[in-house]
């Protein structure tokens, strides 16, 4: 029986490969990630203004559920800073239970996004927008740490500096232990022994002391509630999907393997619904943690599952000690995460990359930093890249001319659409007195109504000057478009064009 059970796993499609092809590496990496998840989940709960246990339960639920339902094996999802930032006002004005409802609705939106295959839309997000996104994310995580320094005394700065020193220098001595964990343990011991005057995790609210239990949000289930949470849920769903899909892309590139982006969307949705039902906040994939996972040797779904389960075990077993962790140590870990997430190469690339790419990247960063909403930043970035692209392609247009018997022949080459239409019209010399004009467009492409209208405009202008106009070689794509949309070759052409 056991051998056949084993065989079922071995032979069923990718199941065995995604789960059991890297057992040792996945378990070790999952453990490292679980340890790193604790400070992050606590820090992000604090950003959102809820008890640390809300973020910790969410991280457990999301990690475990995405291990099974996610589309990218080896990616780590949990409570994240980008999501936490969007919840602040909702929590402040309406409280935790409305956040739970918003989390459920976020999950519903994300499942729908997966069903309508929104993952395919990711191809419109250019490389520059992605760089802007990760940089903005890193800056947001870093900025979220700054309030901790407000009014803090020397012990705060000393612990942050000490922790950072351990985090970055210990790996030079040994790669066998997670240095952020060592930093946290050492600083906790120091804080207790010297009774330092710094904030502890326990001061910030309740920590988990048991397994998460089913928690139905205590809100009036009315339309009014829906209108309150809807805008938050829409934002959360968008940001969650963006960060998850971008992280999936980064993990794809790191490991040179493929992922199912639409399954990831639905997986995130299911994870958020489960998190919402067990008293957790909404979350998504984490770039920093996923990098840590891959770096530690995690590749399969097992690593994500181990991270979630081990996180919970640690909390339940070590709860009283977690309370004693000094906040500055967590701040140090988060600074490390933001440094690791930031794409430092983008400074170097300012000199190498085209200005338009740099503008897209910087605009994405700036919009996010000012709005605290990654979705708006990415939207602006995508829009800008589309505009720059249109501008670039519009330059692929050339009109040359040569005299011909009784007139002139114009040769049009390139792409004709809304962005190049004006330049196209300007290329013609309407002041020249000619009897016949021939426009050869066999090497041009007409993309839209504006292109067609501009050709009409040229033809009509020449006709009004008394020239006889012929058009040569409208290739088939352009011909169908002109046939359907053009007015110059039909009767009462002028009236129609003027009526536009």
């Amino acid at each position: 029986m056991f051998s056949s059970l084993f065989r079922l796993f071995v032979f069923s499609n990718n199941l065995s490969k995604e789960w059991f092809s890297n057992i040792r590496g996945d378990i070790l990496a999952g453990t490292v990630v679980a340890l790193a998840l604790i400070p992050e989940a606590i820090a992000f709960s604090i950003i959102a203004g809820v008890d640390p246990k809300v973020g910790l339960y969410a991280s457990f639920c999301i990690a475990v559920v995405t291990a099974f339902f996610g589309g990218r094996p080896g990616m780590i999802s949990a409570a994240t800073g980008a999501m936490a930032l969007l919840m602040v006002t909702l929590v402040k004005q309406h409280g935790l239970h409305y956040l739970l409802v918003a989390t459920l609705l976020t999950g519903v939106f994300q499942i729908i996004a997966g069903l309508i295959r929104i993952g395919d839309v990711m191809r419109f997000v250019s490389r520059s927008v992605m760089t802007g996104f990760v940089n903005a994310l890193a800056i947001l995580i870093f900025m979220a740490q700054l309030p901790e320094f407000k009014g803090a005394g020397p012990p705060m700065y000393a612990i942050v500096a000490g922790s950072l020193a351990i985090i970055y220098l210990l790996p030079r001595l040994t790669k066998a232990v997670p240095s952020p964990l060592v930093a946290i343990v050492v600083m906790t011991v120091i804080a207790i022994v010297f009774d330092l005057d710094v904030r502890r995790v326990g001061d910030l609210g309740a920590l988990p002391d048991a397994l998460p239990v089913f928690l139905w949000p205590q809100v009036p289930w009315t339309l009014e509630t829906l209108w309150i949470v809807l805008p938050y849920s829409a934002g959360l769903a968008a940001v969650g999907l963006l960060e998850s899909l971008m992280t999936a892309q980064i993990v794809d590139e790191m490991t040179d393997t493929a992922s199912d982006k639409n399954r990831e969307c639905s997986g995130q949705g299911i994870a958020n619904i489960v998190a919402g039902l067990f008293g957790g906040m909404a979350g998504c994939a984490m770039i920093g943690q996923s990098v840590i996972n891959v770096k530690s040797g995690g590749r399969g779904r097992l690593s994500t599952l181990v991270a979630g389960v081990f996180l919970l075990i640690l909390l339940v077993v070590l709860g009283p000690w977690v309370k004693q962790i000094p906040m500055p140590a967590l701040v140090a870990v988060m600074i490390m995460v933001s440094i690791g997430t930031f794409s430092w190469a983008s400074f170097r690339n300012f000199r190498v990359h085209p200005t338009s790419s740099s503008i897209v990247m910087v605009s994405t960063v700036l919009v996010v930093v000012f709005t605290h909403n990654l979705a708006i930043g990415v939207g602006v970035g995508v829009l800008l890249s589309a505009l720059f692209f249109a501008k670039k392609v519009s330059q692929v247009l050339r009109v040359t001319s040569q005299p011909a018997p009784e007139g002139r022949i114009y040769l049009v080459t390139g792409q004709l659409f809304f962005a190049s239409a004006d330049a196209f019209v300007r290329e013609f010399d309407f002041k020249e007195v000619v009897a016949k004009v021939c426009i050869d467009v066999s090497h041009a492409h007409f993309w839209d109504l504006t292109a067609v209208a501009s050709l009409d405009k040229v033809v009509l202008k020449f006709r009004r000057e008394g020239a006889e106009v012929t058009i040569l070689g409208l290739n088939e794509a352009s011909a169908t478009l002109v046939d359907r949309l053009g007015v110059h070759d039909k009767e009462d052409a002028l009236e129609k064009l003027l009526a536009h």
Partner: protein
Amino acid sequence: MIANTPSPHVLACTDGSLYAPSVYQHSAWAALRIGAGVRVLHVLDPHRGRAIGGDLTGAIGFDASAELTAALAQLEETQARVARLKGDAILEDAARQLASAGVEQVVALQRHGTLVETLEELEPAAELVVIGKRGEHCDFAKGHLGRELERVIRTSVRPVLVASRAFKPVQNILIAYDGGPSVLKAVDFVASSPLLQGLSCHLLRAGKTDDTAIHPMEEAAAKLRSAGFEVTTEAISGAPDAVIGQAVRDRRIDLLVMGAYGHSPIRQFILGSTTTTMVRTCLVPVLMFR
């Protein structure tokens, strides 16, 4: 798209394991009998799911993901190059062995990907697929089948010849007759293909021999006789795997022909598979049809 598809050919899957020489000999035998060439396939399956050297520091520094991507790419590049050279050597050896076995047209092919997905692409163009009973590290667990074998057979649209440890000239064949659609396909193939023409043929029906619901064995026998085969038929009651195994030994059968995996993976998961047992316990090559 895969370029250079040769004319009629036998597709021989090799991994350079202990079974490889036997795969080449079986392929050469089949190719010569049906007058075809041989295409030798070696796949490079890098097991990207497996991590290389973990770093448990859990700390990420400047440009963490870019640096990690570069580091992993470099590691995998080295490994992939070694694997490719090893694959080249395996294919060179295969071409040499096939040529010395008398096959004129040998094409070697190396592809990235898993065996199953590569075969899905290549197999429709082939007349016959030849694969070893076990793969690399075959002595690791005796009695276990090659990990990929069952998946290959399940997804296969062509006959699959599963090569045994050593090649022996084929004189006697046994068709394990259960009246199912796959075995009828097998009978059609045997009757029409030059592969087994002129060999002595035993039709054996095992299990509940009084079941009238199944397609009568005599019709299959008649079809084979009219194709010029010398056919004997026999029906023995008992557990199919035991009965067939016994007959293969008693009659000194050189090749077992059977329909493969008539049942869904779920049913097989509960009851076990006759096919798998047969391939494992019979020490002769097996020609399978789906």
